């Protein structure tokens, strides 16, 4: 391979389709961008179906139908059926709100493979306060029970932060009681909405250490019953995580208006022009677009990453985090203690921990 030319990327494994940004909830850490896409700009049924076929052809195996709340789309059942017939494993990422029994019947008949239900809290009081919808918790639990009763695999996606991390044991117990096969203990990652709310959401060091012990113990105790995936709060770590296995290496996201992104936060990076499937093919966006190639390989890296023994492990960490904290997407992830950027992150961390501001809820799309 000549200097400066990247080998072709391996095919992506997963596609996250943000079908819509509309959502009945308004979680203050929502992974949607702070600039939400309006309904009128959403891709239509035929456009999504074409994309599912293109994705399967490229080697995508797993499709995550997400949002916003994907059930806000009236054509969700059709999209599930079309994705299955394209050969994809179809996962529904939902808040559960809007999933009536009749809709679950139709989704099941359409061939839905797996349901991933978000959990804002382990009791109605906290769940409804964080989700911003009274009665949301009750509805969610009913959906969980219905999914399990149907024999479909259920994952609880428990989003954790300072206000609910002390409920971790009860959250895992709830997953067991509901008969979930898997729980994702996903500590909030601080970009977008969550970054605005870091003063209310940043977990403490003690909470983080305790959460790690609880997860290790539960994994042992529940082996073969409940699969536990854990995303720890990375601001308390010493080294960055390998975000998405490296920029443009395992998966891609499509926003409701057809913009193709390497991850949720990527749109926050100025200077990158993200391709749109209304103009180009998905395969071109993945392999050829400048945005997807911007941080592949190691040539883009600054020091100390470029000569670091971990560069193939964490790829210099998260670009969006470098952008959010340092205002420079090309800098090493500021979580890394081997880099000067850590001082800035430590200042933000100390401020966030000292603050107890109220929550800024996610606003609805226009």
């Amino acid at each position, binding site marked *: 391979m000549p200097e400066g030319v990247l080998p072709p990327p391996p095919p992506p494994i997963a596609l996250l389709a943000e079908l819509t940004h509309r959502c009945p909830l308004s979680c203050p850490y929502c992974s949607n961008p702070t600039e939400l896409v309006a309904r009128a700009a959403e891709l239509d049924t035929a456009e999504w179906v074409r994309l599912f076929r293109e994705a399967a052809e490229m*080697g995508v*195996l797993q499709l995550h139908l997400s949002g916003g709340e994907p059930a806000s789309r009236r054509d969700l059942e059709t999209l599930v059926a079309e994705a299955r017939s394209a050969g994809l494993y179809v996962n529904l990422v939902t808040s559960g709100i809007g999933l009536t029994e009749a809709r679950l019947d139709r989704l099941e008949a359409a061939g839905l*493979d797996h349901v991933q239900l978000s959990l804002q809290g382990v009791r109605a009081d906290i769940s409804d306060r964080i989700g911003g919808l009274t009665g949301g918790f009750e509805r969610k639990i009913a959906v969980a029970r219905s999914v399990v009763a149907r024999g479909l*695999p259920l994952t609880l996606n428990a989003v954790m932060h300072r206000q609910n991390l002390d409920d971790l044991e009860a959250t895992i117990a709830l997953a067991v009681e509901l008969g979930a096969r*898997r729980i994702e203990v996903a500590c909030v990652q601080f970009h977008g909405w969550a970054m605005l709310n870091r003063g209310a959401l940043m977990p403490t060091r003690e909470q983080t250490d305790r959460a790690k012990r609880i997860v290790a113990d539960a994994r042992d105790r529940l*082996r073969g*019953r409940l699969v536990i995936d854990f995303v720890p709060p990375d601001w308390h770590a010493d080294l960055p995580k390998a975000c998405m296995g490296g920029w443009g290496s395992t998966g891609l996201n499509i926003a409701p208006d057809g913009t193709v992104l390497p991850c949720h936060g990527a749109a926050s990076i100025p200077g990158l022009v993200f391709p749109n499937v209304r103009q180009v093919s998905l395969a071109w966006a993945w392999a050829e677009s400048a945005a997807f190639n911007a941080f592949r390989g190691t040539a883009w890296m600054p020091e100390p990453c470029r000569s670091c023994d971990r560069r193939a492990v964490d790829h210099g960490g998260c670009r969006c985090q470098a952008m959010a904290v340092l205002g420079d997407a090309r800098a090493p992830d500021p979580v890394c203690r081997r880099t000067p950027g850590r001082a800035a992150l430590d200042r933000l961390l100390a401020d966030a921990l000292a603050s107890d501001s109220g929550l800024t809820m996610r606003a609805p799309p226009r």
Partner: protein
Amino acid sequence: MAGGAVPDRVPRLPRGVRLHDDRVRACRVLLGPERALMLDEVGAAILDEVDGMQSLSVISARLAARYLAPEAEIRADVEVFLTDLAERRLVEWSDA
């Protein structure tokens, strides 16, 4: 019971877990919730026998015949492979 003193069991793929032919990567893949395990030839051969009816003993005997290998050895390998998947909830066991 074919397995002597060891109780026999029947493995199956639970709902939401399935084998997929990956034409792009030219391999078989086990797909489940948030998991895509690329299988080598041995893994694929074992999972092809997992139909929710054949017991561990029957599967082991069939694979032993196919690969001309001692049945006890094959059984041990198959059991380790399937037990690992069961711990990740990608396989379920029931009594024979």
